[in-house]
């Protein structure tokens, strides 16, 4: 029975199947940031090293969600590589302060999106409009179910930073909902 289960030819790794499916997309997103073919390949590799043990919450069949997850990880890896490459890898709290300043400076203010709408779909759009720094941690937690520690591992940031970003993202959304009278 053991040999049958282990020797199943269809028993490819989930990560392998996801790689086959999303490698071009991941590469393409990484390339946009890094502007270097080899570095983009490295970003894909590093992404898989990170996610290979964290795929239990990823549903292979739900393509758009999974696709978004793969891109979140790869883009963050690419950004991290870019920062290192450009010697912009500042202290986390300093980076976070910068992130905080960016929250209202994305050009897509969630408040504007919700002016005339109050459904969950519009709140989803508000989330989509958040600065990716906040949006990614928020989605990893709320949409994919990862805990702060797991997110910290996936995005290569301290757990404390994850918590800060989550709190700020929530606060931003809360302001939107309050303004719209939803809560």
């Amino acid at each position, binding site marked *: 029975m053991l040999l049958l289960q282990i020797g199943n030819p269809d028993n490819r790794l989930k990560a392998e199947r996801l790689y086959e499916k999303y490698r071009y997309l991941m590469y393409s997103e990484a390339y946009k940031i890094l502007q270097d073919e080899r570095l983009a390949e490295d970003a894909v590799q590093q992404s898989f090293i990170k996610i290979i043990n964290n795929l239990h919450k990823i549903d292979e069949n739900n393509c758009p969600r999974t696709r978004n997850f793969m891109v979140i990880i790869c883009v963050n890896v690419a950004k991290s590589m870019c920062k290192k490459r450009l010697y912009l890898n500042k202290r986390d709290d300093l980076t976070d302060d910068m992130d905080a300043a960016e929250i209202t400076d994305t050009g897509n203010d969630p408040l504007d999106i919700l002016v005339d709408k109050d459904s969950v779909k519009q709140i989803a759009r508000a989330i989509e409009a958040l600065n990716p720094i906040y949006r990614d941690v*928020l989605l990893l937690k*709320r949409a994919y179910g990862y805990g702060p520690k797991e997110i910290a591992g996936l995005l290569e940031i301290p757990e404390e930073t994850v918590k800060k970003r989550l709190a700020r993202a929530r606060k931003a959304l809360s302001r939107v909902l309050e303004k719209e009278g939803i809560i």
Partner: protein
Amino acid sequence: MSDNNIDNKIMDKILDDIIDEAASIAAEDLGKNMPEPETVVFSKEHEEAMRKLFRKERNKLFFKKVSKYSKRAAVFLLAVIVISGITVFSVEAWRVRVMNFFIEMSETHSDIKFGENSAKSDSYTSDEITLGYIPKGFRLEKRDAKGSMVSLAFKGEEDYFVFSMIDITGSIGIDTENASVKKTEINGQEALFSSNKNINILVWHSENFSYRLSGTVEEDEYTKYFERI
């Protein structure tokens, strides 16, 4: 807790629920709206690195599975041992209980069962059964085998006795009405001796069989037979 705190908690919960639902929709929308990428020809180094990564992970998974199934096999084996132990113990306990029950009910009871749930032995012939001790002057008069029960009838000048042996799953009937019944011991096993109107009956059992001796022979002689079966 003040009303204000309760309100805040409710509001927080509502907000969390809304965000959870909206986040799932957002994740889906973002994935849908991504442009289809162009096919890329990856470098050989990259493909090799990826193969290596997956191979390493497969090996890790393989050993994890081996370890998991080994543990399951060990647990299964342990369970078999434990269950076997419990079964033996239960049958043994059950026999003792039956024996005790019989003694208590001996005035009216005349049937002893040693274990309906026990594994049944194959049938055998009377030729396979011999007694290691036959009192002087006794000779075998009759052999009888029926299914899993064997009877050997011995006759002396004045006395007689019948030795019966049956699979432990079977039952042995004895007449205990107005009989004097007592517990005794043979080879460390509990046995039952019944005496009524000069007819003595001894019932005993081993692991797989139950035995009965009935006749006019004295109790001491019976014990000698059983000890040498």
